[in-house]
């Protein structure tokens, strides 16, 4: 195979740090044709590039990082039916790493790549049919936004929610940042729309049990737990809720806008299920909707794609003992507070009375190496909003303890001003301890809060009635199982990583699976909706085409070399390999070409494309031999 080399000068970035002439001379001597262009990525440069490639040739580009223009050059050379393609980052890996070593490094890269090219095995482009259904996992605001959009366009959508009601955490918000508008007024229309959409199939109280198949044709098994209330019959009158003798009641319909509008019976609390002969709810129901006899049900679906919107949960504040959460009365989290607001419950302080002084503690667990080393971005806004509500509704003195205030949107600053005008205090510092020991005898019945005021550079103590902890965001429980079920890649904190953080934020490495909402990192309501709809758009684009082309065949299996230990089947992180009558089958759409199987295979029966192990070994060989 004849290989042509293309050097990009990168407008001097490469050519001024690297003696391209000398490189050319040394490489031409081995019979390779070399072209050079000042800006290979420019339209003119691309044309220059394209015009010089002949079918069947190998192409080696020495330019900038493969992440930048790599795909363009690759596409062009494929268009010209080049047999092999490789790109080395002459700019980042040679020219810019110091003039002294630039030439040697460049030579190593180029000669290694040249040798590797002779082992190049092109992956195969294949066509796969697509089923049109869409599974959305998670019925929070992101998931339902995605589901609605997709269903609106006519796709069959299956929305799965683990809890008995849809809406996620948003339905338990009272007011929204930054304009303090009514949350439910904004969220509830979306919830109502869920029921209207006939393409949308709702699965509350359901979890994903198994996912098989491939992009475009997943076979999903869902397991629906019993509600014990027939939501078809129930019209949500709520009579049953009133007669339940258990406290807290065993039959509930918590959210302000319950969807579906039918209560749920919690078997663990229900007297009927604990062997007592109670059936008051059943007796009172005129619609005969109570169904004690319900059992878990399995649903099998065929879908073409999956949107994962499993959301977040607040960091468990009880993991930080010195805040006293779940130990001291009067210490609650922001999410407890929101729930109390939405249910219009009374709010009590440490001594059981309406609080007169409230501390709002930001960054609970956040930006702390022992807990969450990152900032969740959203919580400051939520905390500020809660502080204002506490001030305005309870006329309490409010103190914010923060590390840095990160307020989003242009209106954020205005809200902060409003808070300050209302007399809310902002103390920059870390809270060291909250204790029930009164500060002075007069403070009997109040909590003592010790904090470092970093602006005043002193340790100070406050007596407060209520502490509102504002924890950072962590992935919702169960997202780890979801990751392994769908073979997604979580980052080190457990959030799902997008394919490209900036340019493909809702795509995952897996074709046919997208992420939406806070499952990929902390997001506020609008961002969640945004990413939900973005995911829906991606899903639509994918599912509305009858088939897709994909580069496949990343792994070659050699029958006669295989010892059939089948370790590869177990090792594959994407479950792309299986055994079929003593032969290894690669599920082409599941295989990501990571190479873990090939590097685990003892007998060398598996080889990676486009560069098998020999390419690496030979690259090293020339690198050591010639440079």
């Amino acid at each position, binding site marked *: 195979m004849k290989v042509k080399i293309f050097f990009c000068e990168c407008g001097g970035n490469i050519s001024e740090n690297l003696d391209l002439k000398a490189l050319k001379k040394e490489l031409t001597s081995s019979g390779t044709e070399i072209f050079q262009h000042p800006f290979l990525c420019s339209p003119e440069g691309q044309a220059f590039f394209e015009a010089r490639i002949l079918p069947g040739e190998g192409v080696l580009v020495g330019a900038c990082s493969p992440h930048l223009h790599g795909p363009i050059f690759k596409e062009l050379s494929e268009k010209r039916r080049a047999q092999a393609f490789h790109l080395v980052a002459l700019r980042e890996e040679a020219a810019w790493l110091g003039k002294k070593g630039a030439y040697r490094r460049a030579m190593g890269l180029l000669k290694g790549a040249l040798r590797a090219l002779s082992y190049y095995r092109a992956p195969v482009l294949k066509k796969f049919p697509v089923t049109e259904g869409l599974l959305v996992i998670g019925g929070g605001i992101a998931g339902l936004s995605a589901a609605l959009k997709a269903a609106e366009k006519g796709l069959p959508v299956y929305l799965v929610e683990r809890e008995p009601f849809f809406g996620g955490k948003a339905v338990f918000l009272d007011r929204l940042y930054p304009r303090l508008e009514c949350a439910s007024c904004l969220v509830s229309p979306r919830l109502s729309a869920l029921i209207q959409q006939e393409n949308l199939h709702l699965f509350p109280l359901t979890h994903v049990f198994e996912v098989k198949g491939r992009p475009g044709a997943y076979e999903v098994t869902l397991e629906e737990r019993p509600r014990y209330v027939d939501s078809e019959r129930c019209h949500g009158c709520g009579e049953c809720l009133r007669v339940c003798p258990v406290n807290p009641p065993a039959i509930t319909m918590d959210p302000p806008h319950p969807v579906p509008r039918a209560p749920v019976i919690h078997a663990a609390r229900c007297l009927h299920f604990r062997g007592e002969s109670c059936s008051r709810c059943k007796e009172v129901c005129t619609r005969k909707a109570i169904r004690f006899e319900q059992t878990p049900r399995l649903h099998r679906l065929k879908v073409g794609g999956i949107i994962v919107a499993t959301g977040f949960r607040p960091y468990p504040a009880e993991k930080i003992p010195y805040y006293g959460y779940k130990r001291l009365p009067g210490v609650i989290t922001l999410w407890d507070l929101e729930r109390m607001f939405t249910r219009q419950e009374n709010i009590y302080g440490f001594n059981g009375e309406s609080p007169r002084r409230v501390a709002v503690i930001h960054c609970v667990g956040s930006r702390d190496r022992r807990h969450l080393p990152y900032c969740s971005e959203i919580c400051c806004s939520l905390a500020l909003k809660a502080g204002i509500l506490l001030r305005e509704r309870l006329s309490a003195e409010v103190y914010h303890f923060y590390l840095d205030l990160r307020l989003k949107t242009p209106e954020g600053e205005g809200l902060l001003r409003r808070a300050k005008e209302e007399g809310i205090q902002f103390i920059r510092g870390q809270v060291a301890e909250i204790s029930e020991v009164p500060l002075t005898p007069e403070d009997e019945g109040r909590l003592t809060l010790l904090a470092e005021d970093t602006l005043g550079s002193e340790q100070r103590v406050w007596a407060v009635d209520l502490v509102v902890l504002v924890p950072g965001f962590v992935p919702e429980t169960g997202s780890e199982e979801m990751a392994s079920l769908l073979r997604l890649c979580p980052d080190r904190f457990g959030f799902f990583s997008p394919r490209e953080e900036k340019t493909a934020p809702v795509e995952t490495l897996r074709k046919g699976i997208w992420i939406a909402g806070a499952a990929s990192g902390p997001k506020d309501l609008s961002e969640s909706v945004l990413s939900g709809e973005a995911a829906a758009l991606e899903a639509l684009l994918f599912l509305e085409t009858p088939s897709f082309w994909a580069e496949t065949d990343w792994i070659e299996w050699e029958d006669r070399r295989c010892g059939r230990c089948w370790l590869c089947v177990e090792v594959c992180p994407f479950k792309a390999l299986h055994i079929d009558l003593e032969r290894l089958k690669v599920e082409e759409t599941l295989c990501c070409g990571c190479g873990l199987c090939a590097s685990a295979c*003892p007998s060398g029966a598996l080889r990676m494309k486009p560069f098998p192990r020999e390419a690496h070994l030979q690259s090293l060989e020339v690198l050591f031999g010639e440079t």
Partner: protein
Amino acid sequence: MKIAVHNLLSCGGCDPVFFLEESPEFFRKAEVIFWNKVKDETLKVFRKIPDQGIEIGFLCGAVKSPEHEEVVRLFRRKCRTVVAVGACALWGGIPGLLWIRKEGPRPLSSLVVPDLSIPGCPPEGSTWTVYLQGLLSGRPPGPSEEPVCQECPRDRHPFRLSDFKRFPETEPESRGCYLSLGVFCAGAVTQKGCGARCLRAGYPCLGCYGPPAGLTARGERLLSAMVSALVPQKATEALKNWRDPAGSLYRFDLATHPLVRKGKCGRSD
């Protein structure tokens, strides 16, 4: 047919004297020029043979001393066909493990290129026959690409490991693949041809037939496979309890390891 046979650094177990019964006609017709196990003849006489004067020279064992080197070169010169027999000749064999202490033997292939290499420690009779007949009929066989696993009777399923095991620590009557039991069985990195003898006799494969054709770094490959099977949570503990890394990976071929050849390993104590 004139033949010569000699053992270099070896146990003598690959000497053609052990294969007489496998090729009775060959040996009956052979004219033994030099073979100290069956004939009172000295190297002196052998040196006087004209170059290429002997049809087949069989060499067993590894090379350690200058005398060994001399014999190897002599054989290459005097014999039209040089046949290397056994793991020591091919890869240094078990004594190659001495390289851990910087003074092991080398395979004879590091000095001359043999025309035929018969693998095994020792080769099975059937292997000897296949190779010799192939040679005599002008189609000398090379190493097989297929691993011992293809001859192994044990059952195989996808597996994960929580620990490495030494083979007596496994369930005695278990029929499962040794890898899946956590044993460093070399079957997957060893060429077939022995009929999986050891595996049929209750031993894991120790790897004496050497790598299948084209397979390099078999020790590293076996290691990579075994570690890849480990459940991550148990891996540290398993690695800590792993005995004799060098012996279990390079039992017969440490002498051919690139780091050994480069003189980059081995401690002198």
